[in-house]
């Protein structure tokens, strides 16, 4: 993980670099807003920490410039404790988070971790219900015996069913989530896709099945 630190107080900057590197981040330190923009334009970073009060260009100006140019890099701004206006202004200018000085380095590390986690959500997990697995990455519906690669909408329907096993899922809900509320599609389409999935579950020797619920919708049940 590579970070840019823009902080004009040399002693604070040095201390932060030491702490960040100890925590396995690689850090480029700059001491004014112009250098920050230069580095951010020339390199790819996973995140930036910008002090608000800096020579040449302040942190808010740097942030606004980045966002105006379409750079959505995660940014934490460092503000003076008392200055509510800076915090509000920073967040409104596109900061992901702020930290008021003086701060504890443990809090800064936690906020960096949060910032990076939000940016890179963990890989979607393979879902399992009964003897059936659904892999969001490959769109593969599989059992011990065989596997099928689902079409996009089939996958979305199966995903809804497997995330809510045993719950009634109304036809309207599928329509809205998978096809969009004003797609102009007939409701029959849900039944057609349910039929595709039922056939495939059967061919996989599944111990789960999609049951009809009083013409209202469907329910994924264990056989």
């Amino acid at each position: 993980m590579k970070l840019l630190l823009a902080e004009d107080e040399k002693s604070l900057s040095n201390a932060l670099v030491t702490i960040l590197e100890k925590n396995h981040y690689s850090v480029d330190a700059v001491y004014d807003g112009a250098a920050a923009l230069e580095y951010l334009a020339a390199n790819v970073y996973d995140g930036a920490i910008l002090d608000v009060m800096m020579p040449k260009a302040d942190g808010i100006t740097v942030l606004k410039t980045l966002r105006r140019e379409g750079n959505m890099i995660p940014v934490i701004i460092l503000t003076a404790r008392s200055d509510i206006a800076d915090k509000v202004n920073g967040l409104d200018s596109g900061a992901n988070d702020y930290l008021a000085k003086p701060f504890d380095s443990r809090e800064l590390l936690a906020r960096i971790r949060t910032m990076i986690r939000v940016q890179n959500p963990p890989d979607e997990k393979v879902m399992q219900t009964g003897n059936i697995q659904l892999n969001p990455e490959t769109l593969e519906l599989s059992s011990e015996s065989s596997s099928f690669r689902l079409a996009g909408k089939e996958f979305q329907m199966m995903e809804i069913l497997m995330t809510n096993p045993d719950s009634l899922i109304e036809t309207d809900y599928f329509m809205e989530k998978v096809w969009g509320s004003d797609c102009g599609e007939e409701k029959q389409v849900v039944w057609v896709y349910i039929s595709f999935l039922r056939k495939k579950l059967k061919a996989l020797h599944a111990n789960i099945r999609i049951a009809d619920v009083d013409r209202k919708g469907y329910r994924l049940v264990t056989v």
Partner: protein
Amino acid sequence: MTDEEFYKEALGVLRDAESYLLSLIGQYRDSSPIISCKSRIKSAQSMVEKLERQGFEITLQSALEKVYDAVGIRIICGFVDDVYHVSEWLENCSGIEIIHRKDYIAYPKPNGYRSLHLCLRIREGTAAGTLAEIQIRTMAIDFWATLEHKLKYKHKIPHEDLIRRELKRCADEIAATDMSMQTIRDMLADENF
């Protein structure tokens, strides 16, 4: 080695077996007909290779008694259900005895291969006693198999893992389409639709 040198006088019997099975399959009648039917006598060279691979003696006797596919028939159907109908029909034919049935459609091979294999013995006629193998599969999977077959005879495959993985993905995608086509056909046949 030529086929005549290897199979000797048995070659005539194998040819009889081949035509017996082709004419038997010709009697199949269904609203959803067989799309095509191919047959072959296994070449001497691939027979020898197979015997070696499976650790059998390289003799005519092993070729006729240990291996089922000296005579091979391949039946191509349109839909998955047709494959099972043809198989059921064959299993009920009195002229042949099914020794075993391997359902690689319900239980595909790890590479994604899907087919229904019937290993059988002919009971009547001049080829009585001869072993044969009938493979039944859908047109879509047959298309896949033509490419998969090429890998078997290629010694060096660039990016082999990647190619095999992608080919497996195609098999799963084709099988999924086969299933969806079958589902739509069932819907059209359903009077309540």
